[in-house]
């Protein structure tokens, strides 16, 4: 197993495009470093970049943060919130989407309302959500749910509608019941779209969670108040309020990494669930 990983790594490193990518990332980091230190180096501060802390400083900060348990607590809290909302969105969204795809009447009734609510950004729901739900956690979870929900439903409907009608005809001619058709044709055929919807949805969920945490932790007028606290979004906001810029960037990077890992995990799960797609 280790040998296979080592071989794969060796193959990747041996490729030209890997080095080109690595080169540009290195160049990017160098420019960033120079830009941040431009005042000290050239006596003239570059317009926007000079306000950003240098990568070297951020790296040092990250090393410190990684050793602090409270940081990991925040990360865990954010991740938990993401998966709460995401899971709820899947559990409600997939059946709803399938129902809408299967029944024209149901679709006709629900889709217009759905389409009218969809353009409203999830964050605009935050105040309404706070008014409605008893706890802060639940209100964040609801907004998070909304973020992923619309994407998942749209993808499920799209996937189900694209199923070739001949599959149904073949199944019927072989005597399948409606339940069988649902289980063995509609569900598997829609899985790839569900996976796509999920991968996109998780990204949106992260964005919403971070936003909700920032808003409830601070906001322009300390509006949402409360001790919802914790979470990486709140961490970033706090760092800003406390004036620690390196922490801001360190927090951003951490969120980026967390988001990337979530998407990667989902993609792996997606491949496992749809093995037929990777063949041939």
């Amino acid at each position, binding site marked *: 197993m280790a040998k296979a990983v080592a071989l794969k790594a060796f193959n990747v490193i041996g490729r030209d495009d890997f080095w080109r990518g690595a080169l540009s990332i290195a160049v990017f980091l160098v420019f960033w470093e120079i830009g941040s230190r431009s005042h000290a180096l050239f006596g003239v501060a570059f317009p926007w970049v000079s306000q950003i802390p240098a990568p070297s400083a951020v790296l040092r900060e990250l090393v410190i943060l990684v050793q602090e348990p409270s940081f990991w607590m925040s990360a865990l809290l954010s991740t938990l919130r993401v998966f709460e909302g995401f899971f709820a969105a899947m559990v409600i969204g997939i059946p709803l989407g399938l129902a809408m795809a299967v029944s024209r009447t149901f679709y006709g009734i629900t889709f217009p309302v759905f389409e009218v609510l969809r353009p409203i950004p999830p964050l605009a729901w935050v105040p309404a959500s706070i008014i409605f739900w008893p706890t802060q956690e639940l209100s964040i979870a609801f907004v998070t749910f909304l973020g992923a929900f619309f994407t998942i439903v749209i993808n499920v409907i799209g996937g189900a509608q694209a199923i070739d009608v001949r599959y149904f005809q073949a199944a019927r001619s072989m005597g399948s019941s409606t339940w069988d058709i649902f289980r063995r044709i509609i569900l598997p055929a829609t899985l790839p779209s569900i996976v796509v919807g999920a991968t996109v949805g998780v990204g949106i969920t*992260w964005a919403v969670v971070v936003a909700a945490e*920032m*808003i409830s932790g601070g*906001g322009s007028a300390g509006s949402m108040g409360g001790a919802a606290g914790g979470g990486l979004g709140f961490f*970033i906001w706090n760092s*800003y309020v406390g004036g620690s810029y390196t922490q*801001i*960037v360190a927090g951003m990077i951490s969120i980026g990494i967390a988001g990337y890992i979530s998407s990667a995990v989902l993609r792996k799960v997606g491949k496992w669930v749809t093995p037929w797609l990777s063949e041939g």
Partner: protein
Amino acid sequence: MTEASPVRVLNSEVPVSMAEDDVRGVSALTIAIHRAWLWLRSPRPYLMIIGFVLFIGFWYLAVEVWKLPRFSEMPGPTQVVREWLSRNPTYGLSIFTPEYYLHIWVSTRRVAIAFFLATAIGVPLGLFLGWSERFKQYVFPVFELLRPIPPLAWVPLAIVMFRGSETPIIFLTFLASFYATALNTMLGVESIDVSYTRAASCLGATRWQTFRHVIVPGAMPFIFTGLQISVGVAWFSLVAGEMVSGQYGLGYVINTSYTMVRYPTIVIGMITLGIVGYVTSAAVRLVGDYLMQWRTRELALGGDR
């Protein structure tokens, strides 16, 4: 020697299509009107009405009739509508107050600036990323590096980097919009059937000519789908940014309405956001439909035969 009649087949007039209607010279407007008329005759408009009645009806009943505990503090639909349409609104915002339009204008302006900037930079970048393998190898990793960071996570940094209160918000919105546009454009280029570029090179086109006449038009459908997503994402980021650090704007309205306990205004803000978001997205779609006449007509005729 067989009876040779070399001109037999080619002399006949070509039937343009096998569709029942002769669509030669039919304008896009006519097609649109025809489809609208078909829609009206289907059950769909009536189901739609049922859906809305159920939704609003439930809201009304839950808040104003049954007075369910969860809904106790929420404004009901009659309250919202009355406030929205009143000449002298209790909380200061209705379709008759100029502030209402000011907020809409401020938000829309921010989205417009960010969106157009994102399109102007994102589309060419996406086109090059898709077209040149080399370029992609250099640029894409850096692009992907920054992408997972959610727009709102940039807020503090943006505030630190840019002076003033407008620029950070527009920057945020631009960033989210830019990524969506660039990515979809790149995908659009990559999904162009290789036969088209091969045909172009057979016919003597240079690389640049192929880019202009094949790649750009060929990627257009994807580009416009990306632009619609991009508009949606722009609104998403804008509202987030406005709620955190704005003055004026619909996000700001919703935020302050909450702190000042003006609940019906919250709903007004949300509904307005929904409408404006829908309108901007539809506008992008319509521009796309107009620019890609060839596609609208093809789809109207039921696609490939």
